C-alpha cells in the first residue's frame, strides 16, 4: 500500500494523483541484440561498400601499436595497384589524417572527442564524405583501445588487430573479446623484437588459438619493410574476394560473403 495516500500502489508508483496498477503490467519478450541499432547501421554501411565493390578493413589495436605507420607503408606499397582511402578515428588531433594524406591517400577524419570507440553511425557520416567511386580499399583506423572498439560492428569486411612487440605476447589472453574478433593478427614493430627480448611471436599466436581463433598471424615491420609482402598479398587476396562477391551478388541476390579459411586456405 502506498504510504503517501493509502492507495493500492506503492509509493514509487504514485504519479501526479494517478496510480499505476501493478496488475496491468505486461512482460514483453524482445530477444534483440543490445546493439541492434548499431548492427542495423553497420549492415547499411556494408551495403554501401558492397555496392561500390570496396574492401573495408577495420584496424584495431592499443594506442601506439603502429596502425598509422602500417597504413603509411601500405599506401606506398599499393600505389599504382589499388586505390586506398582511410577513415581516421582520433580523439583530438588531425595528425594521423595528415600523415595519411602525405603518404598519398584520401583521409576523412572523425574526431571522437572523448569517445573510446567508433560506431557505425560515425562511419556512415564519414563514408558520405568520401567519393567511393574509384576506391578499392577503405581502411577504418579505429580509436587506439583494446576494449571498447571490439563491441561495435562498423560495416567492415574484416578486422585486423595489431599487436606490437613492445606490448607483450600475452595480450590476446588479457583482451579475449578484441582478439577473438581478429580475422588477421599483425605482430608489428618486428624491428624491435631483439631489443625487447622477451616477446615470442609463436606464443602470441598460441594465445590467439586458445581463443579458438584460427586467424593467420603476420610479423611485420613497417619501418624496415620486413613481412610487408605477405601483408600486401593478404590484402590483395581479400580485395579479390570482395570483387568476386560484388559480381556474384549482381547475379545471385543471396550470395554469401566468404570469410577466413575459405579465402586463405
Amino acid at each position, binding site marked *: 500500500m502506498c504510504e*503517501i*495516500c*493509502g*492507495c493500492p500502489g506503492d509509493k*514509487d*508508483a504514485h*504519479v501526479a*494523483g*494517478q*496510480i*499505476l*496498477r*501493478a496488475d*496491468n*503490467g*505486461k*512482460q*514483453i*519478450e*524482445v*530477444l*534483440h*541484440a*543490445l*546493439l*541492434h*541499432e*548499431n548492427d542495423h547501421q553497420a549492415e547499411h554501411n556494408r551495403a554501401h561498400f558492397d555496392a561500390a565493390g570496396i574492401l573495408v578493413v577495420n584496424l584495431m589495436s592499443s594506442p601506439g601499436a603502429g596502425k598509422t605507420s602500417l597504413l603509411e607503408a601500405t599506401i606506398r606499397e599499393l600505389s599504382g595497384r589499388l586505390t586506398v582511402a582511410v577513415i581516421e578515428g582520433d580523439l583530438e588531433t588531425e595528425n594521423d589524417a595528415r600523415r595519411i594524406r602525405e603518404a598519398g591517400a584520401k583521409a576523412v577524419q572523425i574526431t571522437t572527442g572523448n*569517445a*573510446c*570507440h567508433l*560506431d557505425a553511425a560515425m562511419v556512415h557520416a564519414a563514408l558520405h564524405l568520401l567519393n567511393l567511386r574509384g576506391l578499392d580499399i577503405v581502411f577504418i583506423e579505429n580509436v587506439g583501445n583494446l*576494449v*571498447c572498439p*571490439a*563491441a*561495435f560492428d562498423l560495416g567492415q569486411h574484416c578486422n585486423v588487430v595489431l599487436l606490437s612487440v613492445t606490448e607483450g605476447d600475452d595480450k*590476446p*589472453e*588479457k583482451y*579475449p*573479446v*578484441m582478439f*577473438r574478433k581478429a580475422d588477421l593478427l599483425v605482430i608489428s614493430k618486428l624491428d624491435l623484437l631483439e631489443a625487447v627480448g622477451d616477446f615470442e611471436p609463436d606464443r602470441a599466436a598460441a594465445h590467439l*588459438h*586458445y*581463443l*579458438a581463433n*584460427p586467424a593467420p598471424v603476420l610479423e611485420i615491420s613497417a619501418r624496415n619493410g620486413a613481412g610487408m609482402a605477405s601483408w600486401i598479398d593478404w590484402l590483395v587476396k581479400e580485395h579479390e574476394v570482395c570483387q568476386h562477391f560484388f559480381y556474384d551478388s549482381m547475379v545471385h541476390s543471396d550470395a554469401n560473403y566468404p570469410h577466413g579459411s575459405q579465402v586463405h586456405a
Partner: protein
Amino acid sequence: MHELAICESVLRQVLALAERHKANRVGRICLTIGPLAGVEPHLLLNAFPLVAAGTLCDRAQVEIEAASVRVECEICGASSVTKPNRLLCATCGNWRVALVSGDEMLLRSVELFETTPQQYGSDAYV
C-alpha cells in the same frame, strides 16, 4: 567506458517498445550478457540510471543474467564450459572449437505498465 553507449541503445529500444505498447512506465528490463560480449555488467548497471533519468525508464530495474562460456569441439564433438580466455575442449584439449554461448548481448524482455487514471477522494490524500 562504452557501457554508456550501450545503455543509450538499450534505452532507445525500450522507449520505442513502451511507445508501441502505449505504456508510460517501465518496470524490469532483463538482459543477458556473456563474458565475451566485452561489457561489464556492474558498469552497465551503474550507467543505466544516468541515461534513463527523466524518461519512462527512470524507475526501471535492470536485471542482468550472465551467460556461461560454452564451446563445442570440432574434433571430438564434446561440449564444455570454459574460461573466456581459454576456449579449449575440456575433453581433448583442442582449440578448434565453436563458441556455442558466451558472447551474447541481448535485451531479453521488458516489463511495461500503463497508468490507469484513477482519482481517489480527497480524504485519501493525507
